[in-house]
């Protein structure tokens, strides 16, 4: 019986050899993959071993840490809750991070190469100094005013967005979206309750998690007329005073254009400036058709339409993604120009879609003499001990119009606020210009109200450009409420030190 016993010993040897080989596979070959696997809770715990950097603006901490007693040592806290949520996003334990928390994650967590020296220092001192801090360009007063006014708007609108940009630099002064959400429950260390809070927001029909300022595109209505005016002025064939054909109604290839009210431009001719001031639909529809599809589409593109690569965050890195604004095809099935569509597109209807931040960028470009600055949110990156590692240096993104054209447009838009449809945006002591927009969207639905505009201080410096968008405004004059809120935001920027 000894021979089979010895063979049984060999079988055991082989089985243990298999165990050993498999252990090598798991612990040596696969080790790195398993160590960093998403299911590996140690990865999560390690991320909470050192405090994450603070996100701040205007000296106020907007995303901070609270020391906890549990295995994850720091709890992320957002003291301003809903107000900054669309910008900051949130950084949960196991779900995906969003907003600046996601785009600046490497720096905030301390893993960025920029903080390599700090990590090496930590290794020698034994300290865990934490991640780098982010200073946002937001003007806290403007942001809080924008949120408060949007939320408590006089028309009881539930959904909307507002963006304010410094026209000279592209620094975002305010970015608000309603309805918003409280990010704090989403970052709870109790992952079940965090997931429940997330699912509840996800199921909400009003989409509170959607950043309407950057992600939602809607028909821009008459704000589109700024682009048509820019195309006309840039062509060299038009001045502010050029008389353009108008009328109470205009029929083109089956599309019928009427004015908002009968008293708007009923005559057969109106000056370009007057047409913009009164928001003359027939005039701009005819002007757009006359200029042709290419000029209209190209000018829109020059202002930033069709750009699906734009991010707002760090000028040298990533940021919040911005949905591309579109002019639509404006074409018949055979590819030729659909003049009816062109007429409607020229007043911001049909397939034209725009984000709120694109609206603010148009106004900012006009206010900045035709130079469009690339918008950004991250003003500074500070090391854990608050040395400045990065400061945003403003970049010109495009120059869609000349200084002269910008000057004419500015005059025309100031006229809109002083004499025309945008009177509600006026601020005493400042020169305010802008353009209203009321966009029909679905049959039977209330129109969206838009306002894009800018404000100059008494030294003639453009201090702010804004866009306010309100969805489905009831009670008529949809854009008036947007204009009023725009004025208050710019006033907040001005009052908060202006620069």
């Amino acid at each position, binding site marked *: 019986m000894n021979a089979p016993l010895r063979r049984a010993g060999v079988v055991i*040897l082989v089985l*243990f050899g298999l165990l050993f080989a498999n252990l090598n596979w798991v612990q040596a070959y696969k080790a790195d993959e398993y160590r960093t696997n998403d299911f590996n809770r140690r990865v999560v715990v390690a991320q909470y071993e050192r405090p994450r950097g603070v996100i701040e603006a205007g000296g106020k901490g907007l995303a901070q840490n609270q020391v906890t007693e549990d295995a994850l040592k720091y709890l992320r806290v957002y003291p301003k809750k809903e107000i900054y949520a669309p910008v900051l996003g949130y950084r949960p334990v196991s779900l995906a991070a969003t907003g600046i928390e996601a785009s600046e994650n490497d720096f905030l967590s301390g893993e960025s190469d920029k903080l390599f020296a700090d990590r090496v220092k930590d290794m020698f001192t034994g300290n865990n100094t934490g991640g780098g801090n982010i200073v946002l360009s937001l003007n806290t007063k403007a942001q809080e005013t924008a949120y408060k006014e949007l939320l408590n708007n006089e028309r009881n609108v539930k959904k909307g967005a507002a963006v304010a940009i410094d026209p000279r630099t592209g620094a975002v002064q305010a970015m608000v979206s309603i309805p918003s959400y409280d990010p704090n429950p989403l970052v709870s260390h109790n992952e079940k309750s965090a997931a429940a809070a997330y699912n509840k927001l996800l199921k909400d029909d009003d989409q509170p998690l959607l950043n309407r300022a950057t992600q939602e595109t809607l028909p821009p209505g008459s704000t589109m007329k700024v682009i048509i005016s820019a195309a006309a002025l840039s062509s060299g064939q038009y001045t502010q005073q050029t008389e353009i054909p108008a009328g109470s109604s205009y029929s083109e290839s089956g599309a019928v254009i009427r004015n908002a009210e009968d008293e708007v431009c009923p005559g057969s001719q109106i000056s370009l400036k007057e047409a913009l001031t009164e928001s003359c639909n027939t005039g701009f529809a005819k002007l757009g058709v006359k200029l042709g599809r290419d000029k209209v589409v190209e000018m829109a593109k020059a202002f930033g339409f069709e750009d699906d690569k734009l991010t707002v965050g760090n000028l040298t890195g990533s940021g919040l993604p911005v949905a591309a604004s579109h002019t639509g095809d404006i074409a018949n099935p055979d590819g030729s120009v659909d003049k009816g569509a062109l007429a409607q597109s020229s007043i911001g209807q049909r397939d034209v879609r725009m984000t709120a931040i694109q609206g603010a960028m148009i106004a900012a470009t006009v206010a900045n003499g035709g130079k469009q600055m690339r918008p950004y949110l991250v003003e500074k990156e500070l090391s854990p001990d608050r040395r400045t590692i990065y400061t945003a240096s403003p970049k010109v993104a495009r120059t869609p119009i000349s200084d002269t054209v910008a000057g004419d447009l500015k005059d025309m838009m100031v006229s809109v606020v002083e004499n025309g449809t945008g009177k509600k945006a006026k601020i005493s002591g400042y020169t305010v210009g802008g353009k209203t927009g009321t966009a029909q969207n679905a049959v039977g639905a209330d129109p969206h109200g838009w306002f894009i505009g800018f404000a100059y201080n008494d030294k003639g410096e453009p201090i702010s450009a804004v866009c306010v968008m309100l969805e489905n405004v009831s009670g008529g004059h949809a854009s008036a409420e947007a204009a009023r809120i725009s004025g208050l935001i710019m006033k907040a920027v001005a009052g908060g030190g202006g620069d």
Partner: protein
Amino acid sequence: MKTHRNAELGLLAFVMVLVAAYGATVEANRIGEITPTFWVPAALLSVLFLGLHVVVRFTAPYADPVLIPAVALINGLGVGFLRRLDIGDALSEKLPVPGIFAGIGGRQLAWTLGSLVLAAVLLLVVRDHKVVSRYAYTLGLVGIVLVMIPAVLPSSLSEVNGAKLWIKLGGFSIQPGEFAKLALVSFFAYYLVRKREVLSLASKRFVGIDFPRGRDLGPVVTVWLLSLLVLVFEKDLGTALLYFGLFVVTLYVATERASWLIIGLLLFFGGVYLAYLLGASVGGPFANFYDRAQVWLDPFALSNYERNGGSYQLVQSLLSLGTGGLFGSGPGAGSPRFVPEVQTDFIFAGMGEEIGLFGLAALLVVYLLIVERGLRAGLGVRDSFGKLVAGGLAFTLGLQVFVILGGITGLIPLTGQTTPFLSAGGSSLMANWLLIAMLLRISNAARGPANSGGGSDRPGPGPKKAPTQLHGAMTEVIQP
């Protein structure tokens, strides 16, 4: 003839130093300092093992000197790791460091005492392993009853983590299967020694291998059916593999016919594959096995990972092992609590994060040493019954280590076996220490003078000792 008892004592002292050093490292890593009492668990264990050593000196003086120290090392590290879990749990709850007798580590210490007492009693009562063969049929019956009890009990009284292997009474639970394997080995050995001649009769020769007569297939088919019933009703592939492997190997050793191995392997894997197919199509009692196979095939698939009773345990086990890497984080410096059931089925994975591939490989070598020493006792002992019992027990131990470690490292589908001498729990520890006591008894016969017990087949140069009164002239107790 040398007894090598002093070598055993020396080895025992060495492994207890290792256990004490492990305890000290755990405290340094977890508490941040080595407490003045770090050596106490190791010292208590030393006293216990010393007690067994003394019993062996008097009752089995020629027993293999490596077995006790090797098992003591694993047992001691098990207690040390369980105490490490207690310390970790207490610190994360902001409680003071628990006392030596508190928590699962303390309980394991108590179980070790109980197990060693049982082992000593076995050595004292069973002075000759052949005596056991007198009770072979009783043991066989007891073994089958022990295996079947969890299967017939309602799930609420027998199911833990999807496997029905337990008897749960109040807060107390035992795994009867752990004891059943001892009884079954004894029964198989007796039965096969009686039947070996019939079973080795050849009828047909096929590709160079003699196959048995059809009518002799009865017993192997019976055990095969029983083990498949275990697979389906106790929902546990590992246990089925254990019993069936045990039977086939003792059958092979008894008859020296390789054809039995081939028939056995074909039957078993054919049965398993059939159960897998039935699980996929019919479901019902086979569904659990099919599920486990799915989990094993792709543990990282989200559908498997997030499912209740899915691959969560296996994945966390693999991640724990992977995080440990080659050298591990050091005893006490890992996060074993991320591994579910880390004190029982997954203790090897929990330790693997902290002692790394090198530490686990060393543990594997110690297990291998125990198994090969057991087989050696079988080789050395003269009587057939002793050979089959020693070989069967040692092989079962090795197979059990393979089944559980293979399961938690993803080599084979995961099953609910305990890791011998390491896992928290009294049933497993007691049964395996009884197994070791039986191996000590047989190795004593194998290594001792020829007329003391079973005798040695090696021409020993030493002087022959006078036969003791209990080890009479009984050289062949097996009745035809």
